[in-house]
């Protein structure tokens, strides 16, 4: 689950990482009231930065960050930014912060490293960068149990000195506490700035929460529904019902049990001259209801000419699938279907479907070929 910048910064602040003072507005009418109030409380002052809150990267390049020197300018910019879409995603709100005097920008992040099988620090003495294309990157394995000297070694490796070293190390420690306490996949501060007065502040933040851990993190209860920007409506629905759907541009709807099998089937479809409309994994041991839901979601896509259902029953029972299929066909008798069912309880499934008019393929390649030819 990707979080908005303002949510990431709230979490930073909760864990003691300094962030700029700010106010947030959801519509243009609010700006004058909220900004005046913040200025009155001496929390903020002009010039200010206005930043689109959007679940997409590349915000700066897309013009989603602007500065305003007075209220008049702030109002005009707010009006414009709130209407901005970035990579097709809508701006949810604007975060308004003071424009800080920056002496140095850094990059600091924690993520899980596949190869080392553990969390790592990624840092750079250049901030505001795209870390993948930077040359000046320090990475450091994070030991378990954690030790805070690792953060000092990291700050040292960034060539920091004096107070800056101590403060950046302290922030790295806190970022790790946040990372493990909230089960994150990514906690990124980019840039982490050192101001001209020597403060170290998280100027922008990105957090990705691990989806598998959501149910043990009460902090995020109810958040998932509000963080599905960038998914199609059918993908959103699937995610909330525990199905894995990824939509593509083609016209053959693909449903299998097991992610590898879906991908393998998609690739064969493409290889045989067809175009997959989606990836849909019903998972292991799918029930009749779940299978039916999967069929309905794919059916709902108007681009889909034919559905290719490929089930290799191991932990999944073919008869459950057959029951779902019977119900589905009754509901949508005109739907073009190619079905391949093999494995556990296959006999039962064949019996259930014997009067359905559905041909059951036992060979995968034949099924794929049939689906492709029906899609043209």
């Amino acid at each position, binding site marked *: 689950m990707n979080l908005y910048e303002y949510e990431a910064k709230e979490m930073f602040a909760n864990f003691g990482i300094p962030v700029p003072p700010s106010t947030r507005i959801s519509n243009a009418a609010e700006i004058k009231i909220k900004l005046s109030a913040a200025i009155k409380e001496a929390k903020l002052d002009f010039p200010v930065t206005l930043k689109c809150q959007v679940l997409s990267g590349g915000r700066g390049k897309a013009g989603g960050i602007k500065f305003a020197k007075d209220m008049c300018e702030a109002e005009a910019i707010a009006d414009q930014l709130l209407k901005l879409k970035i990579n097709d995603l809508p701006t949810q709100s604007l975060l308004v912060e003071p424009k800080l005097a920056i002496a140095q920008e850094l990059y600091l992040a924690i993520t899980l490293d*596949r190869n080392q099988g553990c969390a790592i620090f990624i840092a750079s003495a250049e901030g505001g960068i795209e870390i993948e294309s930077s040359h000046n990157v320090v990475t450091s394995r994070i030991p378990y149990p954690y030790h805070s000297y690792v953060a000092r070694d990291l700050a040292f490796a960034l060539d920091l000195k004096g107070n800056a070293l101590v403060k950046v190390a302290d922030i790295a420690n806190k970022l790790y506490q946040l990372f493990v306490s909230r089960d994150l996949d990514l906690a990124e501060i980019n840039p982490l700035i050192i101001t001209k007065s020597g403060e170290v502040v998280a100027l922008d933040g990105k957090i990705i929460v691990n*989806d598998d851990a959501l149910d043990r993190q009460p902090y995020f209860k109810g958040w998932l529904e509000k963080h599905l920007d960038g998914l199609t409506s059918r993908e959103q629905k699937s995610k909330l019902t525990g199905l894995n759907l990824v939509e593509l541009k083609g016209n053959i709807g693909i449903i299998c049990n097991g*992610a590898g099998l879906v991908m393998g089937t998609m690739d064969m479809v493409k290889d045989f001259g067809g175009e997959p409309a989606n*990836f849909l994994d019903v998972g292991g041991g799918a029930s009749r209801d779940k299978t039916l839901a999967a069929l309905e979601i794919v059916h709902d896509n108007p681009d889909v000419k034919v559905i290719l259902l490929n089930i290799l029953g*191991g932990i999944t029972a073919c008869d459950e699938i057959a029951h779902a299929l019977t119900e589905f066909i009754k509901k949508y008798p005109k739907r073009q279907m190619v079905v391949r069912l093999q494995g556990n309880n296959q006999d039962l499934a064949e019996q259930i479907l014997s009067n359905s008019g559905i041909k059951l393929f036992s060979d995968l390649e034949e099924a794929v070929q049939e689906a492709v030819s029906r899609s043209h």
Partner: protein
Amino acid sequence: MILVNKNTKVIVQGATGKMGATHTKLMLNYGTKIVAGVTPGKGGENVHGVPIYDTVKAAVEKTGADASVIFVPPYLAYDAASEALAAGIKLLVLITEGMPPLDTAKLVQEVKEHKAQLIGPNCPGIITPEQCLIGILPGSLFKAGPVGMVSKSGTLTYEIALALTKSNLGQSTCVGTGGDPIKGLDYQEVLALFEKDPETKAIVLIGEIGGSAEEEAAEFIKQNIKKPVVAFIAGQTAPPGKRMGHAGAIVSAGKGTAQSKIEALNSAGVKVAKTPKQVAICLSEILSPVSH
């Protein structure tokens, strides 16, 4: 064969749950030596005739088990696996899907400290056909023979095993390493075991998009594997930035593409098949060179 055989004594952690009980039965039917189940608070009960113990320690003391297959819910999996390690279990097969990766990372470290081996999490398990099945693989699709298989996937592996079996190409052992980014055994460890195993004559490697394990396996094959390897890589049509079911199956920032993996494998002399059936065809050619 590698890792497991007809003498492997297996305990089932979570045997009293629905999934645990179902697969305890299937594993017993296959002939696996399931010697005990473990569920805290259910010691003294039995599941399909298998005695249940409260702790792994008690189960190991009574039965001398050497492997454990874990069916407990994702947030309890780390605890269960740690318990097995502390009790001296040297092979863990972690079926559980949805284990938070920070838990897996801790477990992987402990597995190393205990000099044990972990298959999974989120994996179908391991089978040495006609001897020992640990996990959820459908045993009927496999038969004994000379092909070693290692795979990140579940059902895709069954598909390919089925194609091999239909072509009369039996398997020495098949290891499903699981689709999570952080996990126990990866290609290289399994490849090394197959290379040393006299019964394995050829190897099938099944990969998918995401990460760089296939590229590293290719490099490892180039350096260390003399036996013929045929590969299958799923996800050529996967769009970038989208997670394809498995937590690890994602192309991000241009990394982890099927293309990159296929090229790496090709350059290591590995033939990459386009369909499961092609895997069988390639292997037939390799294993019966006189016939063509």
